[in-house]
């Protein structure tokens, strides 16, 4: 077994994840290398879901009976846990959504309907980057179409980093919002927040950070980031599907208009008009994802008990090893940074002219689960002139042996199509 400094006790950790015992194709144990798409779930999270449904299931916020009080306490308790996890100044800044995509759409729509000074309209500009996930592109394209605002973006350097050389031109007095990803899901690049935030603050633009690929993998401190909004998604961080988070600065959440209307988000309703509850409830219309919030709370507990800094160190060690081993594979080209510095644990590559679909399919037959395609970041593929990539991504349960299995699998792919 390969020993790398900084590794977690994966033998113990893997026991918590039932799916990692899954056997596929004639008795091969799964090698799950697709955590950037969605993570596996520890037993602790599934237990929390079951306990919620079996013992405490009720609708939240309005019940005076015991089980309803318990459900409310569990749901709001999950908000407390998430607030602590991201070091939010106030629990009321944590909004539960259905996924990161909804969180990002929520920001875009709030700004479209806002009053000055936040309002995005035809005299203003929106800034994103060329490495965004579609979920941080399309909401802004829609906003630009609907308001007449101009959409601008930072391009990419050849080695997969943001090209900030023209930052003063891209972010200017007209810019209302700058939205970018902390870690790219395709390239793995970890972006320099400070430079962008500083420039945005100079011109009075708001900053929204897509932390979908960061929250699961490293300590996340929304105060240190100095952003105005931070979005992420539960299912990539050991939590259930069906839940996302938007953190926003309190003053903004007070000033900005609601997005979805309905039960839970109101203060008082008459047929003629309604007033809205204070944040976070203002932005949570309808019965919230109660069980999913509880599950996310359990995920946050699970990750925190291990320690986000330890998880980051583990992934760094695995990534360093994986980059090194992958570069040994003939004809393999990494799309994105080719070192483990300032990068996350998702590594995209192309293998000669073998199409990623074929790479993925043959790996699957070996029990190795990787993702192939444009990973919801097609502009990156266009930028590098490739139709798609194969992506292996790692998490706290990933092992050097799995990296080795991937490298062996890729040899097999080369022979197969050679």
């Amino acid at each position, binding site marked *: 077994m390969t020993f790398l400094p900084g590794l977690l006790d994966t033998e113990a950790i893997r026991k918590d994840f039932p799916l990692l015992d899954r056997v596929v194709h004639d008795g091969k144990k799964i090698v799950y290398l697709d955590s950037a798409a969605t993570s596996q779930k520890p037993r602790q999270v599934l237990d929390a879901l079951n306990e919620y449904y079996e013992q405490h299931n009720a609708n939240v916020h*309005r019940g*005076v009976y015991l089980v309803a*009080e318990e459900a409310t306490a569990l749901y709001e308790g999950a908000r407390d846990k998430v607030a602590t996890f991201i070091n939010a100044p106030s629990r009321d800044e944590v909004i539960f959504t259905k996924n990161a995509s909804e969180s990002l759409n929520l920001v875009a729509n709030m700004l479209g309907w806002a009053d000055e000074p936040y309002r995005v309209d035809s005299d203003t500009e929106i800034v994103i980057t060329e490495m965004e996930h579609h979920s941080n592109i399309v909401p802004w394209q829609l906003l630009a179409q609907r308001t007449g605002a101009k959409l601008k973006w930072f391009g990419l350097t050849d080695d997969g980093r943001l090209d900030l050389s023209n930052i003063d031109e891209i972010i200017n007095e007209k810019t209302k919002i700058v939205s970018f990803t902390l870690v790219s899901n395709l390239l793995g690049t970890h972006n320099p927040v400070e430079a962008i935030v500083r420039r945005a603050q100079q011109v009075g633009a708001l900053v929204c950070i897509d932390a979908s690929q960061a929250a699961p993998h490293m300590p996340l401190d929304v105060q240190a980031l100095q952003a105005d909004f931070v979005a992420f998604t539960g299912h990539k961080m050991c939590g259930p599907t069906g839940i996302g988070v938007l953190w926003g600065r309190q003053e903004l959440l007070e000033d900005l208009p609601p997005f979805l209307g309905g039960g839970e988000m109101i203060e008082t309703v008459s047929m003629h008009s309604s007033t809205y509850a204070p944040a976070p409830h203002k932005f949570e219309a309808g019965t919230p994802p109660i069980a999913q919030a509880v599950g996310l709370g359990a995920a946050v507990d699970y990750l925190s008990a291990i320690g986000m800094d330890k998880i980051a160190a583990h992934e760094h060690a695995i990534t360093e090893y994986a980059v090194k081993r992958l570069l040994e594979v003939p004809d393999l080209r990494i799309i994105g940074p080719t070192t483990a510095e300032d990068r996350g644990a998702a590594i995209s590559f192309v293998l000669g002219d073998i199409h990623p679909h074929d790479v993925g399919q043959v790996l699957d037959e070996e029990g190795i689960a990787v993702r192939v395609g444009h990973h919801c970041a097609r502009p990156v593929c266009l930028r590098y002139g490739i139709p798609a990539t194969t992506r292996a991504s790692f998490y706290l349960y990933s092992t050097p042996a799995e990296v080795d299995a991937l490298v062996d699998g890729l040899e097999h792919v080369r022979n197969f199509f050679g």
Partner: protein
Amino acid sequence: MYQDVILDHYKHPHGRGLRDGDAEVHHVNPTCGDEITLRVKYDGSRIEDVSYEGQGCSISQASASVLNDLLVGKELEEARQIQETFLTLMQSKGQLEPDDAMEEVLEDAVAFAGVSKYPARVKCALLSWMAWKDATAQALGELAERKTA
């Protein structure tokens, strides 16, 4: 939670009805529709009267009655302390056992200790107290304005 003291105040509220005042506020508990209209009358910094009218559950009604008992005749400073002590009690989630000192300050209002275990009802118990705070701010603002005018 339904201490006899609370039920007594509910059935026989003290000081209920709207009388002359320096400021009037209307507060609503959005989750349950409890409503209160409350007026305060100050004589300098002394609370001359707190009058109110409203509809709501026993907890919110009894709490308004207890407030009237406790605050009328007090100096603003003391009233503020009472209000804060009550707030502390209500936010204690049933973890706080009122001691003698607290009982001295809150009198009948210590009966609400049990309510603090029920988050949905804490808002009912606080409705009149929040209204009083708001009305006081308005009244004293107005008085201050009148003085400087």
